[in-house]
């Protein structure tokens, strides 16, 4: 527990971990928000979530190579993912939509493998990064560094979240999506074209992931095989926050980011991933335990 002592001896590093965790947590929350949307509306757990993220990153990389400014590339990557999401919905997702969750998990898992391997073929397995050309802020005498790109990403993620929430609340389409989430048969009877709503929801999710991925590529590095970590994080955030709760998702995302950083610091980087996955199990058990007290079941 030497590492813990460092944190007590020099709390400034806790601040560093906390700030950094919160900033990156916003990006996780963004992807998680898309997952919650698809899960809530379509009753599908999208296992290709992480691959959408990485794909967004690679698209931004390609756009940057083609000479576009990275920030302009973010909406383009999101738009491209929207189209890709739509196509994937039409080809595969539409056929698993009313099957049980298990089938949709496996189907999206297959899509994840497919996307991974296609990215590997198209972009190569190289680690790529996109330089946004921003600098670093120093706080506390240089002990705490804050990357400007992370701050920018944080705000982009938050703004996107707000826009999305407004879209769902205020627009006709958004209302149709929410109605479908509540009860798709009722929505159908009321004249909502649920098939179109599903397609848009799925495509929208892909677009959100694309934006998140574009941010990821500017903050860290991307590689075709890095998707699963983002899928799992999204899932955890959704489990903690519940479906259709924007603020909850955002808070859970930020919390996860910070928790992850502290776990990595204290337990050592080798147990950071183990920590995330163990946390997932523990959260599920805890939730289940609470429900079993009421003799009710998760379903």
């Amino acid at each position: 527990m030497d590492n813990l002592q460092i944190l007590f001896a020099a709390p400034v590093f806790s601040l560093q971990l906390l700030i950094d965790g919160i900033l990156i947590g916003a990006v996780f929350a963004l992807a998680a928000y898309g997952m919650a949307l698809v899960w809530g509306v379509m009753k599908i757990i999208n296992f290709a979530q992480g691959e959408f993220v990485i794909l967004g990153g690679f698209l931004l990389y390609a756009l940057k190579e083609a000479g576009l400014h990275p920030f302009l590339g973010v909406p383009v990557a999101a738009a491209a993912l929207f189209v890709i999401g739509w196509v994937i919905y039409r080809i595969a997702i539409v056929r698993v939509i009313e099957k049980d969750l298990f089938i949709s998990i496996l189907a999206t898992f297959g899509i994840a493998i497919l996307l991974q391997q296609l990215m590997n073929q198209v972009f190569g397995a190289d680690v790529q990064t996109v330089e946004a050309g921003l600098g670093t802020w120093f706080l506390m005498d240089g002990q705490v560094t804050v990357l400007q790109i992370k701050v920018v990403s944080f705000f982009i993620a938050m703004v996107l979240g707000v826009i999305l929430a407004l879209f769902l609340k205020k627009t006709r389409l958004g209302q149709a999506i929410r109605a479908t989430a509540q009860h798709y048969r009722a929505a159908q009877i009321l004249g909502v074209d649920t098939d179109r709503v599903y397609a848009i929801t799925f495509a929208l999710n892909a677009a959100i992931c694309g934006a998140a991925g574009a941010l990821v590529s500017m903050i860290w590095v991307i590689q075709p095989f890095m998707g699963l970590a983002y899928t799992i994080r999204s899932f955890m955030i959704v489990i903690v926050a519940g479906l259709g709760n924007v603020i909850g998702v955002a808070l859970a995302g930020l919390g996860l980011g910070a928790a992850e950083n502290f776990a990595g610091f204290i337990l050592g980087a080798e147990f950071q991933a183990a920590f995330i996955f163990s946390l997932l199990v523990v959260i599920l058990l805890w939730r289940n335990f609470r429900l079993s007290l009421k003799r009710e079941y998760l379903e």
Partner: protein
Amino acid sequence: MHRNMKITFLLFAMVAAFGLILAGPAWAKVEGDMITFGAAVSFTGKYSTNGKHTKNGYDLAVKRLNEMGGVEVAGKHYKIEVKYYDDESTPARAGQLADRLIKQDGIKFILGPYGSGPTKGMAPITEKYQVPMVEANGASRALFNKGYRYLFAVLTTSEQYLTASVDLLAEQYLAAGKDPQDAKIAVAVENDPFSMDIRAGILDDAQTHGMRVVIDDKLPKELTDMTVTLTKVKALKPDLLVVSGHSKGAALAVRQTAQMKVDVDMLAITHCEAADVKGKFGADAEYTLCATQWAPTMSYKDEWFGSAGDYAKRFEEEYGYVPPYQAAESSAAVLVYVNAIQRAGSFDKEKVRDAIAATDMETFYGRVDFDDTGKNIAKPMVLRQIQNGEYVPVAPSQFAAEKVIYPRPKWKDR
């Protein structure tokens, strides 16, 4: 009931049919005037960049040898070729493919895959079938204490990759009149067989110098972020930060130390060239120490490629990029293999194996001389520092072109 039976028989028929498809063309080790080597290399998966370097290295050597008239065995000239499979960057696949190469394709000469993991997967199989494998990219020392007789590595094993940086630090301490025992080291390596051995080497070396290892992080294979480890570095202020994690680790280390303005006196990493840190990060990569098996500037020579520089030129003409050492060592593996076959004067596996074991030759890549565990003990690792946008050898002393710049200038002074 009988419906099930029909289905089952149908399936067995299908299996048989598939079996026939698979059985298809059978490669023999030597057919007519062709010698076929077998290799399982990562074309997909996380090692595929380096897998490509490996394949290019093999192919260039094969092409060169064929241009020069092929291989002469017992008075007859043979062309050579390599049969590749994709090991998907996983050891399990590599093992299966070794089996496939040997049993199904009848290949008797195996070239290694990329990476210690896949090599570990293949070695038990080649060993069992007593097929010699000369490999160029499996550097883990754990490969060489298992009693394998048929495994040979032309490269320096990985525990030696970065130990030179520890020695360098000790020298600097002594030169400054300080006690090396006060030096602090931070180690952050990817959690895979290769990097874990680098770590083992560093830990051993630090112990001999009496240095303290203050950070010992194993980075996950799905590494995306080193912020946490670097925060620790800031907190504990080690003199030397050692990072190893294939291309991904190199890119992250250089990028994030610059972003977070982490000041360490010495930063030593592997895979600089493969990750192209110089090209990607420019000034941020300055003063980084890079471990390399080989560099085009070295003075080695051989009869096939000429000097190391000539090799680099030829490689660049062919593939359009400067060869990283992963490619060079792969080419060297082919040269060693072919040389051994010529000396054996036979295609007998056992004779070839003995000839390989007896190898003591000079190549453009360096001298190759295997000890009785099969690793090359004749060629040291070189440490290069990025100075003014160039890789400059700084250690060990016989290769040093410049003095090492120590300590790295602080970020605020750059």
